[in-house]
């Protein structure tokens, strides 16, 4: 029997039971759709986060609280950060002439300006923040370390914060009120974009010690150091470790390069994506059981037809392959529809929701390949049962 003929017969059998075939394939449709959608969202999230990190520049060294290898929160999260403003000053002195040093602490605060009031990300940082993070100041100037040390109440605004608080007005030289205290706006920074729907431009940057005093916290969340070149990175990492270790227990912080963070973030998100896809894959497995079930029903309904075909010269493998192709076709068609829906939904998610989604070829291949695999695995049992039917017995079947 030619395989083109087998496909035609299988398509005819599916067409003859359209509703039943459709309901059976629905499981495959949903499974493939979820696999594509979840992998796309996972991949999108990963590239958005890595993109953000990469935008910071590859010469960055981070010092973060806790032991990084065992997970970011082991040994205490940001709230138990061991870093202090003094430690950052010491580090800056130790690395003077070698690398730029800054530190940040973040707090969600209410800010008020002449045009209105809004919640902002309030950053406490040092005067070298713009140099370390490679942030352009579009108007005015970033505040200096001198400003920071003397506790002057000055602020630099992100574009969204400026618009929310000042509207059409020019913010430079104006007052912005943060947690009830007035700050003079001295500069505006460039646009940073949106991450997961959070507007990174809704930020207000103020001197570190002023922020600590204002928010009543002693900690500094993160220490950032920019090495002059990639070649200098390993040396800078060692220097940072040695310097911080003078005042802080070595177990309470980790020093990482951007590559370290990218690697770990990539691994974590990759694993998360895989787990989500595997859960969606379970629905494909369930769909496969449905396919197996309906194929067994089909074999039993068509027992006499199988007997007839065998009487007319069909061999066991002609019958087996006919039913296997039918199961494959059922899953393949379901898979195609699932792909269409999955890709469509991913596009919609990308367009209208804060979730980033990135449809990749390997996700499509994996999902569709799995649906065909399900067809083969779950089609084999019914197909073999059909092929093994005794023609004399099958023809007598009522």
């Amino acid at each position: 029997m030619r395989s083109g003929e087998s496909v035609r017969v299988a398509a005819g059998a599916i067409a003859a039971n359209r509703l039943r075939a459709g309901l059976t394939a629905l499981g495959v449709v949903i499974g493939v759709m979820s696999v594509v959608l979840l992998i796309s969202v996972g991949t999108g999230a990963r590239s958005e986060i890595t993109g953000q990190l990469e935008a910071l520049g590859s010469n960055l060294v981070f010092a973060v609280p806790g032991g990084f290898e065992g997970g970011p929160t082991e040994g205490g999260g940001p709230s138990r950060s061991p870093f202090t403003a003094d430690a950052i000053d010491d580090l800056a002195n130790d690395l003077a002439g070698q690398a730029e040093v800054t530190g940040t602490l973040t707090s969600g605060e209410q800010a008020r300006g002449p045009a209105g009031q809004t919640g902002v990300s309030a950053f406490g940082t040092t005067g070298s923040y713009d140099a370390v993070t490679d942030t352009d100041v579009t108007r005015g100037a970033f505040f200096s370390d001198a400003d920071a040390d003397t506790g002057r109440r000055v602020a630099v605004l992100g574009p969204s914060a400026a618009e929310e608080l000042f509207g059409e007005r020019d913010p430079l030289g104006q007052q912005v009120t943060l947690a009830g205290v007035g700050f003079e706006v001295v500069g505006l920074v460039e646009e940073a974009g949106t991450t997961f729907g959070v507007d990174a431009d809704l930020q207000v940057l103020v001197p570190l010690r002023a922020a600590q005093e204002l928010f009543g916290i002693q900690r500094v969340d993160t220490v950032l150091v920019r090495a002059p070149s990639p070649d200098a990175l390993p040396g800078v990492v060692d220097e940072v470790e040695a310097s911080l270790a003078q005042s802080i227990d070595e177990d309470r912080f980790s020093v990482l390069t951007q590559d370290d963070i990218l690697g770990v973030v990539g691994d974590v998100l990759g694993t998360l994506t895989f787990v989500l896809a595997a859960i969606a894959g379970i629905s494909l497995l369930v769909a496969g059981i449905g396919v197996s079930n309906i194929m067994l029903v089909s074999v039993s309904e068509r027992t006499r037809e199988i007997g007839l075909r065998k009487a007319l010269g069909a061999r066991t493998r002609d019958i087996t392959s006919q039913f296997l192709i039918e199961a494959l076709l059922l899953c393949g068609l379901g898979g195609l529809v699932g792909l269409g829906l999955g890709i469509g939904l991913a596009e919609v998610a990308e367009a209208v929701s804060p979730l980033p989604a990135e449809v990749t070829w390997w996700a499509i291949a994996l999902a569709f390949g799995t649906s065909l695999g399900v067809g083969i695995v779950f089609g084999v049992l019914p197909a073999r049962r059909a092929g093994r039917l005794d023609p004399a017995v099958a023809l007598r079947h009522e």
Partner: protein
Amino acid sequence: MSTDELSVPAALAPGAEAAAGDGAGAERNGEPVVDAREVTRHYLLGRDTVVEALRGVSLTVPPGAFVSIVGPSGSGKSTLLNLLGALDRPTSGSLRFSGRDVADLSDAELAALRNTDIGFVFQQFHLLARTSARDNVALPLVYRGAGRRERQRRATEALDLVGLSHRRDHSPAELSGGEQQRVAIARALVSEPHLLLADEPTGNLDSQTGTEIMELLQDLNARAGVALVVITHDPEVAALAPVQLPIRDGVLDQDRASASALAPAPPASGPADAEPSEGSPPR
């Protein structure tokens, strides 16, 4: 299936060399199309109940013969027909098709034998629904790998033989019972078999239509030289055959099943050198 089977001549003229499973056209020269010797068929019911559906049947069908097998319900007619049609294997005894013993043939070889040498006509027609008459007729050709063109051409020729080529695009539901059985006969003929087996071919038809179907089968037997075995419990139908074999409780009337009684009425494929001793020995 080998491709040389595709070049089987379409003509159904008497004496035409028909498709043979393993080469040698010499098979038809006198070799019986089917030769059963002391064949039994036992069915196992449950763990230890044995139904002896056939209890030692010997029967020889020479090329071109017309035999009817008649007996009451449950006498083993269908069981015998399944064996004669290579749909089943005997429990004991020897069963040969054109000299080849089924014991030596694999299931796939039996399928090929059914495909090329044997045509079936069933009481319930067994046509595929939602499938045109022509595609139904062409079905056996699908299993020898014939291309669509050739299948359609040969199916149309076979429908011509049963006088239904004008109905080739109709589905079974659009045909009368008699027409459906004609389509089934065309399907049995399309592979130019040596042997046509009909199990109660008139059982689902009124007597007028039944007579027409029997006339068609007899005509094909006489003109195309295909051996015809008709199973029936209707004595009138059985009487049409020159050789009638009563069957009862799984045994044939042995006197009448002897070789001499089974000589073809007209020697259609001319087995001039047929050995008279060939066939089941009388006991």
